[in-house]
């Protein structure tokens, strides 16, 4: 079974149409042309589907980098460490 971290990385690749080596921990909203405001909406929809969570406007704003997205999902019950 795929681990959450793999699902998380795959979500970035699917939503933003990135190659595997383009998904790094430094990735942030607005710093690549793919992760712009519209790409962000697709990314949020993908994350919601993959992890079965609901992200409202405030959380969408908080999810502004690869790292902050993990922290946010972690708070919503997605475990990236002990799975």
């Amino acid at each position, binding site marked *: 079974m795929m681990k959450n971290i793999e699902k998380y990385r795959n979500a970035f690749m*699917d939503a933003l149409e990135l190659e595997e080596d383009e998904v790094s921990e430094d990735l942030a909203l607005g710093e690549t*042309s793919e992760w712009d405001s*519209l790409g962000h*909406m*697709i990314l949020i*929809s993908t994350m919601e589907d993959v992890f079965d969570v609901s992200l409202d406007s405030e959380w969408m704003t908080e999810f502004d980098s690869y790292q902050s997205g993990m922290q946010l999902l972690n708070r919503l019950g997605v475990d990236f460490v002990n799975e």
Partner: protein
Amino acid sequence: MTFISIEFLIFFTVIVFAYYLIPHRWRWVLLLAASYSFYASLSSYFVLLLLLSTAFSYSTGIMIEKQETKEQKKKVMLAGICVLLFFLGWFKYFNFVNDSIRAISAYMDWNYAIPYQEIVLPLAISFYTFQAVSYLVDIYRGKQKAERHYGYFSIYFAFFPQLVAGPIERAKKLLPQFKVEQTLKYENLSYGMKRIAWGFFKKTLIADRLAPIVASVYDSPDPTGSQIVLATVLFSIQLYADFSALSDIAIGCARMLGIKLTENFKQPHLAVSIADFWSRWHITLSAWLRDYIFVPLCKGRKKRSEIYLVIIITFLISGIWHGAAWSFVLWGLIHGFYRVFGDHTKHVRGKMATFTQLDRSPTLHKWMKIATTFLLVCFSRVFFRSDSVTAAFENAQLFLTPSSWRPSGIIEAFELFSLLDLVIFTFFFVIVQLFHYIERKNASTWNWLSQRPAFARYAVYVLLIVSILVFGASGQGFVYGGF
């Protein structure tokens, strides 16, 4: 009693004095009485509708909260929103829909008998309905508790500084501020008065001086292309000065009562793209549309083409919100198209900037983007300003005709101004640009000014007041006051 009147200034001064003199527990009564009096002075006929909408939203909020399941909450919320939108639809859109059906029926040779109805648009209905919708949705989403104190809730619904034309506020931001005891602070009074004066300045020295000039072209049966170009650019300046002045006065009045409202403008005519423009223009409406239309409609969308459709729908709603006319619908669609086209071509435009080496001169590149965005916004405003779709297309055609942009024609079009009017407008326009320049270099022009020597500060204040008293033009209503 409009904002730009001695009556309002006297009324507001009395309210401020009374507000700080009476105990906190009675202030909500004062604010509520002031809000309803202010509304009645502008639109006494529709106070009852405001009261009904308030009572309905108050009770619906509590009903949503009392439901046990999410599904039940959703049903009550949707029912509540439908009722609120029914009122908005009836008063604002009945004739628009009715006229459209009649025109289609005439074209198709159908029998359609419902005549035009004399329906007056209740003042501020678009603004307070949107506030009410956000309140109900936030309760459903669990972000807002249903307010039990009917007085505080009623002030949220009808707070007079922002009732007529926003900023559109959320209950989460306003309600707690009404409940906290606001103490008399020099900073609040001083800042509030400056913002009000600045609003008066923009309204009377820019907006209302330009309004008759713009109207002389748009009301003319045969304007020249250059006149349309000039009048449209001037209308953009007028609209910004008019609406931002309204927000300045609202923010200033609220601040004098210790209440902080949301900023509604961030120098929108310096936006580098249409997306950027909408993050700087009527910010509270953009945020409302984002949170209650765009984001919910984006749920589950995983293709850019699907998001594009949502953008178009959102701008369509924005257009319809602004006015019940096809020209506003088209205006909204034009902005939707701009936004989608901008996104779809961003890679190509990036490559073109590299190919032409424009990206090596960031300042030039930025100003070219600002100029392009401004012209696109101006073009859309041809539809915003024109009285009918037919006139809008005629004016748009003139705007797009290359000969309309001949410098000699534009210079000739300046004859719309008398020499005195042109000198006065130019002088005050430069002052506004100077204010904006200082704002860009510092966080706040008012803070920057407060650090200058006393004589410099007071010279500016005297200049503001004397300019308004001597050169201020008034008598024009606020453009957004009609929405």
